[in-house]
């Protein structure tokens, strides 16, 4: 693949946007996972499916959409979904998690309607669902790069607020931190990253890249900082190994990236178990 990487532009696009997503997805994912909101990423990715499907359908009907990259409508739908989730979480104060299945169903619902209306999209759709090495354009790479800068700046500036909010939301409100708009910005950025990552990882698997590396990292990390660095490391390894495998075996990269992340998680769990630091066993309990 290394030789091909120097030769083919589409491979460069896929490789570099993969590298970038491998950093920013787990970075945002850490904050999502520690707040027990892992499913939000799933809900948003399904909403962006509706946006993509809508854009693809419209491209058959309206001339304007024929030239428009579907990634934009996908990102817009995800942002809309993230704002709705925040709104619904306030409506259902005592059932905050209910906002997630509501938005997730809405996403699949609209997605299914657009896909049926357009009588299916064939290979195009499979690429959006499971990712594709060949479909990433220069423009997609540019969008991902700009987003990455926004994510870095945001996390750099609000790291301490995000940590305080995630660790103890009540305390953070009581100490006078204006968490609401930081949370809102965070959700919008997450939605944008999900929307932009789907070319590579695919809609159905983008949330895995936000949660699986984090799931492995929090098993071994003692500090929040190390949890973040490990999440990024595991994310990058998954993306690089996954892309190589996808290219050589001609498989959708979404699958190989996620399976690599699962393998890393398994290694971490087994390693922890072997070193005796696994889940605390009750006294006298026989394995």
């Amino acid at each position: 693949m290394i030789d091909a990487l120097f030769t083919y532009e589409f491979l460069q696009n896929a490789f570099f946007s993969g590298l970038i997503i491998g950093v920013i997805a787990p970075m945002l994912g850490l904050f999502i996972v520690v707040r027990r909101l892992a499913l939000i990423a799933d809900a948003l990715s399904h909403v962006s499916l509706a946006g993509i499907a809508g854009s693809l359908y419209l491209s058959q009907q309206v001339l304007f959409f024929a030239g428009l990259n579907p990634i934009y409508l996908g990102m817009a739908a995800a942002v809309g979904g993230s704002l709705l989730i925040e709104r619904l979480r306030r409506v259902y104060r005592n059932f905050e998690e209910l906002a997630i299945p509501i938005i997730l169903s809405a996403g699949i619902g609209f997605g299914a309607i657009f896909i049926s209306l357009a009588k299916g999209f064939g290979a195009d759709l499979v690429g959006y669902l499971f990712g594709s090495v060949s479909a990433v354009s220069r423009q997609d790479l540019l969008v991902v790069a700009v987003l990455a800068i926004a994510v870095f700046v945001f996390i750099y500036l609000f790291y301490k607020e995000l940590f305080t909010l995630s660790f103890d939301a009540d305390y953070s409100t009581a100490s006078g931190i204006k968490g609401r708009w930081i949370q809102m910005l965070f959700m919008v950025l997450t939605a944008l990253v999900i929307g932009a990552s789907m070319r590579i990882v695919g809609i159905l698997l983008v949330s895995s890249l936000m949660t699986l590396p984090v799931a492995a990292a929090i098993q071994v990390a003692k500090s929040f900082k190390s949890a973040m660095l490990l999440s990024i490391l595991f994310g990058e390894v998954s993306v690089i190994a996954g892309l190589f495998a996808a290219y050589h075996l001609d498989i959708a990269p979404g699958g190989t990236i996620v399976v690599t992340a699962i393998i890393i998680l398994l290694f971490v769990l087994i390693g922890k178990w072997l070193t005796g630091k696994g889940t605390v066993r009750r006294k006298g309990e026989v394995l």
Partner: protein
Amino acid sequence: MQESLVNLTDVTFNYGNSTVLKDITLTVQPGEFWALIGPNGSGKSTLIKILLGLLKPDTGSVELFGEPISSVSHKERIGYVSQKSNSFNSGFPATVLEVVRSGLTKKTGLFKRFSKEDTEAAMNALLEVGMEKFADRNIGELSGGQQQRVFISRALAAKPDLLIMDEPTVGVDQQNSASFYSMLEKLNRDNGIAIILVSHEIDLVTDLASHVACLNLTMHFHGGRRDFAKLNDKDLSRWYGHSVRLIHQEEGDSSND
């Protein structure tokens, strides 16, 4: 005259149609140690939420540091410690130092990162509660009593004038809660930090505090500990709505809020 830390005047609060707090008046001066006691559902936690600005009273005024609560510019002058059980997820990947330093988030201000001085302030706060050796440990590995010390230390990091604690020893065993209380006494005596401690453990906290506020819908008593000690058990039992004796706490009264 010194500014009062807390000035509540005729505060009333309703949840829907039911009145939870009625005509509450309370003044806390610098250096005082208040025990806020009352039976379950007496409105103690609601009163604390009003003090922290998390709830707005229906009538009456709330002043902190001589300013109306809505315009208090330095909320970091209050350190808040909640009940241990509901404050955090014990699997959270964070070290003790990271947690304590998060107490400086508001004070450090937006768009700024923690400085070396902030880390030193956090270490000093850990030293004050005797937890400096645990700075690099994961917060989830500590015992309940140790975690609660860390949370006090998080509240102390910003050098508050007033510590507000809502049943901080729930879920902490007796021996540890005794040493926890003596640490509070020391913080109040040596550092001059005013304390409002919410508790159902009447004897323990009334021995510790300089002032006592006895709440059940209305404020039945508020004043110095000596005056409180002069009260007879009959009055106290009437306010509590069931039999209570001072000096020896009854077995049946150890339920949580």
